[in-house]
């Protein structure tokens, strides 16, 4: 059976999260809240990925579930997993990257805080042309 809500619901929620994230990134001065905005954006992307993986018919280019290969000792097969699993895998990758990104970003923010005594991203404009 399909989920109780249709695809559009999830897409709309994701879009809203995305907008909120963009707004947060654009308007906040505090670097940490900018980071929060980034997390929101990533989450919305994740929702889209998983939603598509659940609802939409997977493309043929995602390949078969498994490919048999000959082996001396018994038969074997290259397992590719179900085609729709790709969406989930991408979502998992996004989560992994988010973790890495948060760690590094916090490190950077601490460095900024130490060096310039504040975390206002508007003061951090060394790239000014």
């Amino acid at each position: 059976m399909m989920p109780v809500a249709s695809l559009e619901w999830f897409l709309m929620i994701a879009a809203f999260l995305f907008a909120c994230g963009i707004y947060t990134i654009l308007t906040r001065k505090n670097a940490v809240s900018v980071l929060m905005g980034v997390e929101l954006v990533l989450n919305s992307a994740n929702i889209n990925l998983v939603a598509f993986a659940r609802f939409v018919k997977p493309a043929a280019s995602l390949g078969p579930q498994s490919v048999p290969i000959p082996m001396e000792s018994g038969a074997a097969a290259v397992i590719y997993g179900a085609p729709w699993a790709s969406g989930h895998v991408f979502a998992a990758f996004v989560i992994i990257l988010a973790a890495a990104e948060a760690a590094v970003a916090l490190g950077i923010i601490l460095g900024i805080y130490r060096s310039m005594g504040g975390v206002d991203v508007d003061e951090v404009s060394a790239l000014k042309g």
Partner: protein
Amino acid sequence: MILTLAAAGSSWADPAFWVFLAFAAMTVGSAVLVAATRNIVYSAYALLLTFFGVAGLYVFLDADFIAAAQVLVYIGGILVLILFGVMLTNRIHDIHLSNETTHPVTGAIIAGAVFLVLAYVALRTDWELDPRPAVPTSQEIGKAFMGKYLLAFEAASVLLLAALIGAAYLARRGEKE
């Protein structure tokens, strides 16, 4: 727009749908809080709610593994990091950590425009759906990780290691100076 959503085959009679609505409302509302509150710690905890709501949405998408991963990584890891960041980069003693905003109007305009575009795309496209029963996902995800995406998987592990070292280095350097 809501009309379109309502039309998009959602059974208002199903209690599960109301639970879904509750989760959606939680997600959206807390996202607004994240964007709007003056107090940064509040927005951090609003973010907690958002993450939790998103996890709920994953459950409604039959993505159990991703839901658990969401809770584990985002709430258990990233949110804690963010809270640490907040508490380390602000004077502790004042409760009402200021978190002022700049150019809210511009931001609102741009964000609104983005939302409109995305919503338009989401609602106007006719997606090629395939109705299929819900299956436990973790096994398939594991197969995909170990099979098709093995290289990406290893690369991700290396990236995590690099991030670990880099973060530790960045955080430590201040002490040396």
